[in-house]
């Protein structure tokens, strides 16, 4: 007897939608995905909004409002397996820069009537609010990794997601180290692999969009960047982008 297909749901919190677009961007594999799972809730792609519970929930975005903080509890209750996708959901995203500043001041600068705004002082990852079964890193996430997570879920196996540094991917593809051969500031040595070392292959230092690697040492890298003549402000800005609130990057290169 054929089992019924697992039900997939995609939820969005504070985010740019880029990560859930990665699912639509699967193109060649999208039909295969649709063939294996029942896409029950995916507002970005379909009007169908079937109620839960869901077998697999992909959650994009960070928690930035009191409403979000309530809603993520409901999502968790309706999801058997909850996978957070992207830097916002796993680390608070670029909007977590508010965590280093005064959000009320920001609101006054941006909105004519800030009193209409109901927001939290912090942008936090989903894991700060509910238990998360798996975190998929990236800004945006990698399509291959997303398919791997779905395939692994369907097969009932652990997904193959490496936690080594981006350097391991540069070396595997034969990209010359920008930091060593060019003195280019690069977060590769402290950032988790998964992107295939995309930026360095285009002569750009790693922005750290996959967040901290399994055992990062930001102070050592920051020290080296200082030796190469990079000022403390520049080094801090390097760490404070998409994963600014990730614990290892939070200190801006100083010990967390």
């Amino acid at each position, binding site marked *: 007897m054929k089992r019924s297909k697992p039900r997939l749901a995609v939820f969005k919190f504070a985010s740019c939608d880029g990560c859930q677009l990665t699912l639509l961007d699967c193109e060649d594999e999208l039909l295969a995905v649709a063939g294996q799972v029942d896409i029950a809730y995916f507002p970005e792609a379909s009007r169908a909004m079937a109620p839960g519970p869901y077998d697999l929930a992909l959650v994009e975005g960070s928690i930035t409002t009191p409403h979000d903080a309530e809603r993520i509890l409901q999502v968790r209750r309706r999801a058997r397996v909850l996978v957070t996708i992207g830097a916002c959901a796993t680390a608070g995203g670029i909007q977590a820069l508010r965590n280093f500043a005064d959000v009320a001041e920001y609101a006054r600068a941006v909105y004519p009537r800030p009193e209409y705004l109901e927001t939290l002082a912090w942008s936090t990852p989903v894991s700060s609010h509910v238990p998360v079964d798996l975190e998929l890193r990236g800004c945006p996430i990698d399509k291959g990794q997303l398919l791997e997570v779905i*395939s*692994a879920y369907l097969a009932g196996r652990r997904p193959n997601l*490496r936690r*080594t*540094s981006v350097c391991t991917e540069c070396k595997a593809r034969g990209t010359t180290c920008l930091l060593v*051969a060019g003195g280019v500031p690069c977060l590769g*040595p402290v950032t988790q692999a998964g992107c295939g070392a995309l930026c360095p292959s285009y002569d750009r230092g790693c922005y750290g969009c996959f967040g901290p690697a399994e055992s990062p040492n930001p102070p050592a890298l920051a*020290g*080296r960047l200082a030796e190469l003549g990079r000022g403390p402000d520049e080094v801090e800005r390097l760490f404070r982008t998409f994963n600014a609130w990730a614990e290892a990057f939070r200190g801006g290169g100083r010990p967390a």
Partner: protein
Amino acid sequence: MPARPAASRSASPAVPAVMAAGDLGQLFSALTTRGYQVIGPTVRDGAVVYDAVDGPDALAAGWGDEQAPGSYRLVRRRDGAIFGHRSGPTGWKRFFWPPELRLWQARRMEDGFRVEAEPAADPPRRALLGVRPCQLHGLLRLDRVVAGGPYPDPRYRAARERAFIVAVNCTEAGGTCFCASMGTGPAATAGYDLALTELVTDGAHRFLVEAGSEAGRAVLSGVPHRQAEKDEVAAARVLLQKAAEAMGRRLDAGGVKELLYEKFEADHWDRVAERCLACANCTSVCPTCFCTTVTDATDLAGGRAERRRRWDSCFSVDFSYIHGGPVRASVKSRYRQWLTHKLATWHDQFGTSGCVGCGQCITWCPVGIDLTAEVRALRAGGERGNGV
């Protein structure tokens, strides 16, 4: 290499030959007509890397490099030397022991699954042009590990057996070189088919050529050459001697195995761990590091499965994961494992050092950790190593 004993590759003729640098194209022709794809040093992305080269024009001629802990820069040479650069970031390991390889795949059948073996090993015939003596020793040590035991890796072995090696002796040492300390250079002594020593003196540009195998002699016979003059042989000897004396780094290999066993609990490992990024650049560029991980994956529809092998590293936490957690959770324990395996336990395991003195781990460490300085610091009683 078990397939072709080193002895048959090391017997050099008494008098080397001399080939004009302008005839390097003939060497390419001699190799390509024998079905070899030539891999040689070429400039890409600001470094000398090893890749397929069509002819002498594609080589990194006229380029040199400046290497220091955590630093590599290409520099123009005035003398037009063709092999005036040192080991580069890519190394030769990847051509035989690739970063990623599918081992087999399987298809789901009505009654289970069927394993589909990868196509029979038929790797390209590669001629490696410009293999430095340290890197050549690296390949020989990898041979011992990967193809020397009771279970040789068939694809590695097939690729190695088909390879033709043109070594190039080092007439200059780089800033992170220490082959003289490890007894692996600056001249190749075994494992090559041809060995070149570049002479750019007296306005004449030529190569002293030694054949180390029958295959090497056969290729040489197809390239214009003459017997070397005594002064040419002497000039090469002087250059190699000078290179040996000008090593940028030195490692006192005497008793280093015992030293590392003795220093297992030294405080110094903590100080290395403060600087170590655990990024695995060192193990990636090391010509002898061979550790891999194997992963199984299935496709979306569950109809196919495959097993892949990928480079891994003792610097990765997951590499030492066994039931319950990683064996080497701290960076300190991982750096210690690497250095101790390289310089000490390798002797017990494989009968040689795991280090060939190429210095690439020093150059390509983003924070410039220098194993020669670390050994010195351990010897001095655990004092801080290099100031980098």
